[in-house]
């Protein structure tokens, strides 16, 4: 730490005050949803609001999976959310897999052979710029013609397509970090171009692809509009279930918060794992964290 690093006391103190203030503003909502998810019925709507529940109402978490009635004399039908968790998993994983595989192939094309030249990258980016609703309408029309509305496959393909710009660009930026000489040397030693891509460069960017996959999964898991538009009953993802839960019963604060907490657990977990590559993902590989 050079002399300059140890700034004057005043600056460091002010710095820490700002950081703690920021932390409080960030943490309070998280605390609020967690505490509400553990409040029993009486504590949901009170004035002044209750911050720490007396008893940890674990039944809120259990009721949303059993779909049973809530105790405490107030009988209410709590919707069963297990189907939405399963559907979300299927569609997110399926969408991510296709997006990664197709994205990987395209990334090699862009990074190593400049296929598509200048036009393709611009098209890929602008496909991502337009608000999803603008693309959802024609998709709904197409799906209604070929009978893919309200099907897992339909949503999976939509998810794959909408995250392709991210997966292609992120993987391409990982490929560009591997020197071309490695592939050239392997080619001179007896491999064809394609083999050098998959046997030489691919093993070296395994970590990057895993991070990209997690990043795409996070996008698909929390996607709402496409699911709302392209599915009705047979397929029900978590965000759509939350909206239904909210409009249907509105006042079931406890179970609804519990469902919210459960929905974000995988997101937080995956985000911690890929934190290093986050910047690259969010900026289409333009900035490497």
């Amino acid at each position, binding site marked *: 730490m050079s002399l300059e690093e140890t700034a004057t006391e005043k600056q460091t103190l002010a710095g820490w005050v700002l950081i703690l203030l920021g932390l409080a503003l960030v943490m309070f909502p998280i605390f609020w949803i967690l505490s509400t998810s553990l409040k029993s019925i009486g504590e949901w709507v009170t004035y002044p609001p209750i911050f720490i529940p007396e008893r940890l109402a674990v039944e809120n978490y259990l009721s949303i999976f059993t779909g049973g009635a809530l105790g405490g004399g107030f009988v209410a039908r709590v919707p069963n959310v297990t189907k939405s968790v399963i559907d979300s998993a299927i569609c997110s994983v399926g969408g991510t897999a296709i997006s990664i595989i197709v994205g990987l192939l395209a990334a090699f094309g862009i990074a190593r052979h400049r296929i598509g030249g200048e036009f393709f990258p611009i098209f890929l980016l602008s496909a991502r710029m337009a608000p999803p609703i603008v693309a959802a309408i024609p998709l709904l029309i197409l799906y209604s013609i070929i009978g893919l509305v309200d099907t897992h496959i339909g949503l999976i393909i939509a998810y794959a397509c909408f995250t392709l710009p991210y997966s292609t660009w992120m993987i391409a930026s990982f490929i560009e970090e591997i020197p071309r000489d*490695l592939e*050239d*040397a392997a*080619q*001179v*030693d*007896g491999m*064809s171009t394609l083999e050098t891509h998959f046997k*030489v460069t691919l093993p*070296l960017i395994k970590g990057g692809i895993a991070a990209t996959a997690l990043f795409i999964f996070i996008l698909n898991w929390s996607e709402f509009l496409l699911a709302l538009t392209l599915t009705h009953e047979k397929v029900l993802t978590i965000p759509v279930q939350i909206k239904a839960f909210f409009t249907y019963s509105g006042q079931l604060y406890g179970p609804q918060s519990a469902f919210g907490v459960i929905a974000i657990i995988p997101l937080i977990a995956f985000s911690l794992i890929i934190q290093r590559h986050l910047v690259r993902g969010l900026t289409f590989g333009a900035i490497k964290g």
Partner: protein
Amino acid sequence: MASVRFENVSKSFGDKGVLQNLSFEVKDKEFFCILGPPGAGKTTTLKLIAGLEKADEGDIYIDGQRVNDLPPRHRDVSMQFESLTLFPNKNGYENIAFPLRIKGRPESEIRESVLRVARLLRIEHILDREPRTFSGGERQRVALARAIVRRPRVILLDEPLSNIDALLRLNMRVELKRLAREIGQTIIFSTHDQAEAMSMAQRILVLYEGRAHQIGAPEELYNRPVDTIVAKMIGSPPMNLVECLYSDGKLSSNTFIINVDKYTEYLARATSNEIILGFRPEDLKLLEEPPRENAAKVKIFSYEPLGAKTLVKVTTEEGEILDVIGEPWVRYEMNKEMWLSFDLDKIHLFDKKTKTILV
């Protein structure tokens, strides 16, 4: 083993012409060097032989077989890249064994040839370590082992010694030369360092701006450079070139006059009387008093002791700066007037227009 022949091969990237009808031949088992400044097209030439680049015009033959359309994997050529990139996820042994694994050789044969090459390059002790733990020299030798392990027809080394530090480079030159003699295969290496080329290669191709200026043994390039480009490139510090006018047996620039009647029949072949006089710093003597003739009056501009000798820069009256090799550790007085005497058997004369050599 194989010979390599280029017949007026041209190559350009977009509008930048990198190679212009380049023709040369490398004999079988020869240790051949392509010498040229950065950007002269050395790497492109090697990539053309390896098949990583396609020639726009002209033909490339390996062992008499035209290979222009053959993909790299069918040419049985190996190449070591300047960046010495190794597979970061494989240890030393796997890096060297890689070419044999692709060819699907049996495990026993792979083991035997990798150990043979490792002994040859004295790197048995690092075979089980990861590339990131290698020193510069070790990295260079593993890359070299990888290039020679499968006994390809031709071995290509792109600036093999440029990425290792100076002290190691001198030893590696001797080792590379010993290795070439021992494995007796056709090796073509590129470099921008004329000392490297002169000390290692049996024959050198001087490449400048995509054109072959001269092909020959080191002594030939040093003593009989074909033009000013080669003269300037070979020898360090480089040859001095001074423009003069030739008239009836005398070469004169406005600061000195030399009688060159012994070269009159060569000078007759010049396209005009404008001649370029070339003389090497080591062939000059700095004298206190003016010798009888063939000398120039100069002033000391600067001097740099180089240990075993001193590089002195002198300026002629016109302000032209010339290099001279002086005695080691002598303190030259700034702007002191001295005399530069020429050794007439060691001068070179070039035709100013065509830049080609006369003597």
